[in-house]
C-alpha cells in the first residue's frame, strides 16, 4: 500500500483545517429548511405508488384481483406480485410482504386503489422462533443458501447437523484448544443472551423515484453502498437491465438503513415505471418502514467463558443464532462474521470456538444497522465477562485490563499485528474522567445507584487479508480559487462532506469555505467498491482525497514558482495566499485555467477502533425505572479530523445504544407486529439521554489512515448497551440477559429478591 506514515514534524504541524472544530458545511441549509431530501423530490409526469402488503406472515398467494384498483380514478397501472420485476414467487413470507402495487396520479388515489385490491392467501405454517427454525420439521421459508441476488454470498461449508433447514449462512471457527482451555480454567460461566429487534427510526422513511432510459433503470434515492445495491438490483430485475442509482441533493439519515436496496422498494417502483413509461415515486409510510424495511437482527448468544482465579481468560465458546428474516440480503453473514472475529481483536484469546448460523424466518426483515452483529455480540460478551468477573470475585475492570489486546498484538483473525490500539488508554482516561464527573450518590432517597463499564471494538473499512479496499477522488481548482471535490462518499448526515473539505483545505492551504464536496455521482467514474459504509469515509475515501489534494498542492506550488520566480521549497500556501522569499500572491492570481487532479488510496488492512464506555445509573426500586445519570464515552478514533463531529457521532451512538439496552424493540407476536408505529414503538428523545455525557477522545494514530484517523460511526456503538447493563447489574444485583430491559422487568427482579446480595 501507499506509505502514509507521517513524519513526526509533519504530524505536529499546527492543526488548522484538519483537527479543528469546523462547522458542518450543510448546517445552515439544514437549519433553514432549504435542503431538499429525496422525499421532497418531484419530477415531471411523475406517478405515485402504493403497495398492497400481506397481513399474514406466511402464505400462498392464490389470486390477486386488480379490477377494482385498475378502474379507480387516477390509477395508471396496477400490478400483482407475479408481474413484479424481481424474485417474487407465489408465496408471501412476512407480514408486509408484497401482494400487489398501484401507480396513480396522486398518492391518495394510489393508497385508495390499493385498498380496493382483492386477494386470496392461504396461510401456511410459519417459522418465528430462532431455535426451531433449523430443525428438520420446521416449515420451509427457503431452501438452504438459496440463489438470490445478494452482495455477499459464499458457499456453505461444515454445515452442522442440528441446522438442517432455513439456513441463510453458517460459520465456524476454532483457535487453539477450547477443551483444554476450559480444563485449565478455575471459574467458568455460561449464559444465554437475546438481543432486540431495534429499528433505526430514521426520520425520513425509505423512498425512491424510479424511471427508465432504454434498458437502464434509474433510481433516485440515498444509498450508502451503491456498488452492492446495484448488484442486488441487477440480480433482482434481470441482468439484461442496467441499474443507475442517483443521489438526491440531501439524505435523511441511514445508520445502515440506507446501505442496501429493499426488496419491496426499488423493484416495485421500477416495475410500475416500466409498465407506465413514467417516473414513479414510492415512499414508505412508518408502518412499512417497520415491516418492509429492515430492523436489527435478533440474535441469540450462548456464551461459555473460563478464567483462572487471577483473571486470565482461558477459553471462550460462542454459539450464535441470528434471525435474518424472510429473504437473504448478505447481512446475516456480517452478523456472524463480526460476532466471530471481534472477540479476537478485543481480547487475547488463545482458545476460542465459534459456531454461528443465520436463519430464515417469517419475521419482518433484518438488515444493516450501525454495528451489524458487533453491537449484539459486544453487549452479550461484555455482559458475560462482567458477570464472570463478579462470579470469580474479581474487579470487572481488572479482568479487562488483564486480557485486552495492545498495539503490536498479532490477531488470530489475520495474523497481522494491530498497528494502533488505544483501548488501554480509553480505559485509563475513561475511568479518570468518570471519577471526575460521576454523581456518586443517589439523586433520590431510596434509589439504587450503580456503575459499569464495557469495552468494544470494530474495524474501519473493508480491507482484510486477501481483500484490498480502495477509493479514488478528483479535485478541480478553478481560476477563481474555488475547489470542487468528487468522491465516492455519500453524505448521509455523518459529515463526510465537511471532513473531506477539511482535508483538502489542510493539504492545499485554502480556507475550508472555498471547498465544495459534490454529492456522489456514479458518472464521475471513480473506482470505489463500497461507498459510505463500514465507517470508511474518512479513513479510505479521506486518504484518496488527501492524495489528490497533495497532488494539487504540488501542481499549485509549481505554478507559484513560475509566477513569483522563487524556489519551490520556500513556498507556503495558507488561507489561499502563497508566499515565499518575502513575496506573496493570492492563488486565484496564479491559476489561469482549471486544474484537475486525481487521487487514489488503497489499503489491505481494516484497523480496529476501540472504545471503553462507562455508565452510571440510578434505579427507582418502586417502579423499576432507570435514570442514566452519567456517561463517559472514551473512544480511540486514531485522529479526530473534526472533534465536534466525532463527539456528535458518539452522542448519536449513545442514543441508539440506550434504545437497545433499555427501551426499544419492534414487538412481533408470531410474526405480527404489535407496535409498528411511533406512538407505540418507544423511540427515545433527549429526555432519556444521560444527564451528564462526556466524550473522551483518544488519538492512537493509525499509520494507515489519513493523519492517523480511523472510523468512529460504527465503533462507537458496541460498548454502549453492555456498559448500561453492567451498571444496572451493579445497581440492582441482577444480570439482565434479554434486551431491552424495561422498568417492569427490573421491578420484578427486585421484587423477587437477590437484590444487592449478588454484588461482589
Amino acid at each position: 500500500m501507499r506509505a502514509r506514515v507521517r513524519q513526526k514534524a509533519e504530524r505536529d504541524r499546527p492543526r488548522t483545517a484538519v483537527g479543528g472544530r469546523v462547522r458542518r458545511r450543510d448546517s445552515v441549509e439544514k437549519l433553514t429548511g432549504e435542503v431538499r431530501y429525496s422525499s421532497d423530490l418531484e419530477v415531471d409526469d411523475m406517478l405515485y405508488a402504493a403497495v398492497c402488503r400481506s397481513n399474514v406472515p406466511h402464505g400462498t398467494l392464490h389470486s390477486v384481483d386488480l379490477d377494482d384498483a385498475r378502474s379507480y380514478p387516477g390509477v395508471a397501472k396496477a400490478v400483482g406480485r407475479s408481474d413484479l420485476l424481481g424474485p417474487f414467487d407465489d408465496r408471501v413470507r412476512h407480514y408486509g410482504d408484497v401482494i400487489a402495487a398501484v401507480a396513480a396520479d396522486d398518492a391518495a388515489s394510489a393508497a385508495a386503489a390499493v385498498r380496493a385490491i382483492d386477494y386470496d392467501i392461504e396461510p401456511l405454517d410459519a417459522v418465528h422462533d430462532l431455535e426451531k427454525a433449523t430443525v428438520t420439521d420446521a416449515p420451509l421459508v427457503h431452501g438452504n443458501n438459496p440463489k438470490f441476488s445478494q452482495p455477499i454470498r459464499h458457499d456453505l461449508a461444515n454445515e452442522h447437523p442440528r441446522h438442517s433447514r432455513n439456513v441463510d449462512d453458517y460459520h465456524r471457527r476454532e483457535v487453539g484448544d477450547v477443551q483444554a482451555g476450559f480444563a485449565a480454567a478455575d471459574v467458568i460461566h455460561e449464559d444465554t443472551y437475546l438481543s432486540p429487534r431495534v429499528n433505526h427510526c430514521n426520520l425520513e422513511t425509505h423512498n425512491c423515484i424510479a424511471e427508465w432510459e432504454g434498458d437502464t433503470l434509474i433510481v433516485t434515492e440515498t444509498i450508502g453502498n451503491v456498488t452492492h445495491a446495484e448488484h442486488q438490483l441487477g440480480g433482482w430485475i434481470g441482468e439484461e437491465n442496467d441499474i443507475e442509482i442517483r443521489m438526491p441533493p440531501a439524505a435523511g439519515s441511514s445508520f445502515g438503513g440506507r446501505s442496501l436496496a429493499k426488496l419491496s422498494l426499488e423493484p416495485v417502483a421500477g416495475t410500475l415505471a416500466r409498465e407506465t413509461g413514467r417516473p414513479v415515486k414510492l415512499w414508505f409510510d412508518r408502518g412499512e418502514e417497520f415491516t418492509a424495511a429492515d430492523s436489527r437482527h435478533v440474535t441469540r448468544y450462548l456464551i461459555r467463558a473460563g478464567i483462572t482465579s487471577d483473571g486470565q481468560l482461558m477459553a471462550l465458546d460462542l454459539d450464535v443464532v441470528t434471525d435474518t428474516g424472510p429473504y437473504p440480503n448478505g447481512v446475516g453473514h456480517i452478523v456472524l462474521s463480526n460476532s466471530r472475529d471481534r472477540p479476537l481483536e478485543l481480547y487475547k484469546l488463545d482458545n476460542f470456538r465459534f459456531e454461528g448460523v443465520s436463519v430464515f424466518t417469517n419475521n419482518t426483515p433484518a438488515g444493516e444497522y450501525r454495528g451489524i452483529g458487533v453491537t449484539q455480540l459486544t453487549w452479550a460478551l461484555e455482559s458475560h465477562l462482567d458477570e464472570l468477573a463478579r462470579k470469580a470475585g474479581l474487579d470487572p475492570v481488572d479482568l479487562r485490563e488483564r486480557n485486552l489486546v495492545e498495539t503490536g498484538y498479532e490477531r488470530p483473525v489475520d495474523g497481522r499485528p494491530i498497528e494502533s490500539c488505544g483501548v488501554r488508554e480509553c480505559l485509563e482516561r475513561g475511568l479518570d474522567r468518570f471519577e471526575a464527573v460521576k454523581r456518586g450518590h443517589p439523586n433520590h432517597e431510596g434509589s439504587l445507584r450503580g456503575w459499569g463499564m464495557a469495552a468494544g471494538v470494530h474495524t474501519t473499512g473493508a480491507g482484510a487479508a486477501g481483500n484490498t479496499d480502495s477509493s479514488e477522488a478528483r479535485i478541480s481548482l478553478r481560476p477563481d480559487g474555488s475547489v470542487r471535490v468528487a468522491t465516492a462518499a455519500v453524505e448521509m448526515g455523518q459529515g463526510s462532506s465537511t471532513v473531506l473539505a477539511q482535508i483538502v483545505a489542510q493539504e492545499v492551504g485554502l480556507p475550508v469555505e472555498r471547498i465544495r464536496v459534490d454529492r456522489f455521482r456514479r458518472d464521475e467514474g471513480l473506482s470505489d467498491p463500497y461507498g459510505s459504509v463500514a465507517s470508511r469515509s474518512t479513513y479510505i475515501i479521506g486518504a484518496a482525497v488527501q492524495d489528490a489534494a497533495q497532488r494539487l498542492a504540488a501542481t499549485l506550488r509549481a505554478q507559484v514558482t513560475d509566477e513569483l520566480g522563487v524556489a519551490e521549497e520556500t513556498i507556503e500556501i495558507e488561507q489561499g495566499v502563497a508566499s515565499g522569499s518575502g513575496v506573496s500572491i493570492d492563488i486565484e492570481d496564479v491559476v489561469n485555467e482549471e486544474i484537475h487532479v486525481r487521487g487514489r488510496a488503497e489499503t489491505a488492512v481494516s484497523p480496529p477502533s476501540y472504545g471503553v464506555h462507562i455508565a452510571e445509573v440510578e434505579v427507582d426500586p418502586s417502579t423499576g425505572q432507570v435514570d442514566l445519570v452519567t456517561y463517559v464515552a472514551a473512544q480511540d478514533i486514531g485522529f479526530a479530523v473534526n472533534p465536534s463531529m466525532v463527539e456528535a457521532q458518539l452522542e448519536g451512538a449513545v442514543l441508539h445504544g440506550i434504545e437497545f439496552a433499555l427501551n426499544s424493540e419492534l414487538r412481533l407476536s408470531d410474526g405480527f407486529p404489535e407496535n409498528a408505529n411511533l406512538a407505540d414503538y418507544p423511540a427515545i428523545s433527549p429526555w432519556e439521554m444521560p444527564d451528564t455525557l462526556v466524550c473522551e477522545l483518544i488519538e492512537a494514530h493509525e499509520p494507515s489512515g489519513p493523519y492517523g484517523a480511523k472510523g468512529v460511526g460504527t465503533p462507537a456503538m458496541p460498548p454502549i448497551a453492555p456498559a448500561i447493563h453492567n451498571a444496572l447489574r451493579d445497581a440492582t444485583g441482577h444480570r439482565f440477559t434479554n434486551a431491552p430491559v424495561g422498568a417492569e422487568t427490573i421491578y420484578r427482579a427486585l421484587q423477587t429478591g437477590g437484590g444487592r446480595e449478588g454484588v461482589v
Partner: protein
Amino acid sequence: MSGGPASEVTYERPRTIDEAVSLLERHGPDAKLLAGGQSLMLLLRQGLVDANVLIDVSQIDALRGTNRRKGEYTIGAATTYRELIEDSIATDYRVLEDAIADIGDRQVRNLGTVGGALAHADPSLDLPPALLVLDAQVEIAGTDGKRSVALESFFEGYMSTMLERDELLVAVTVPEPFDGVRVGSAYRKLSSVKGGWATVGVAAAVQLSTDGSVFEGIQLALAAVGETTVRARAVEDSLIGEPTDDESIADAAGMVIEDIDPIDDLSGSATYKQDMATTLVMRTVDGAVEGIMGDA
C-alpha cells in the same frame, strides 16, 4: 380476503357550532369530528376507524380559548394542550400543568385539543383524569340544544362517551379555587419513554385543613387502568379526615386495587400496573400536599 372498499373522504370545515351540529345530523354515523387530529389520524391510518366525512371543528371560534367568569373556568373544546398549559388555569391547578407537560411531544401539544382528548375517551390519555379530579363539567351541543353533565358520567366505556351522533362537545368547565381553601393538585405518570403512553397515570386534587394536617377533601383519578378513566373512591374515602402524614397516605394508597381493573398490554402487565397504581397514588397525593405546603 380484502382490504375493504375504497372510500372518498369528504372534508367539512364549519364555522359555527350550529353548522357543525347540522353536519353531524346530516351525515350520521359516516362522520367523524376532527380538531387537532392527534388521536383520530392515527386510528384512520391504522384502519381502525373508517370515516367518509371529516368535520373539522378547529376553526369554530366559539370552541376556542378559555375564560374565567362567575367562579368558574370555561375551556373551549378546541383549545389546544399548549394553549391550556399557558393559561392561568394551569397555574391555579398544577395537575393540568403536570399532565399536559407529559403528553407526547411539542408537536402533539400544539395540535391536540382538550375536547379531542375527552371525546376520544381513551383511558390511557393524561388530560381526562386531571380534569376529573377538578370536578369538571362538560357542555354538549346537539340538535336538541345544549346540556351540561359531570365529566365522570360522560365516559361510558372504552373509547365511548354519552355523546349522541348529532352532538359535539363544546366546552369544559372547572370551578375556580375557593378563596381561603387550601387546594393542591398534581399528576404523576409512568411511561416507557417521556411523553409516551401512560403505563399508569394518577391525578390528585386535595383540600386540607387550615393547618395542613388533615385531608378535608380529596379527588383521585387514574389513567390506563380500566375501561375508562376511573375515580379512586376507595382511596378517597379512606383518606377523608385522615392526617396528611406518609403513613396514612401509604395505608390508603393500597386501596386503589379496589378502584381499578388494568389489563396486560404493551405498556405492562396487569399486576405491574396494580403495583404502580399504588406507588403513584402515594407519590401524587404527596405531590399535591407538597404543592400546598410549599405555597404556605
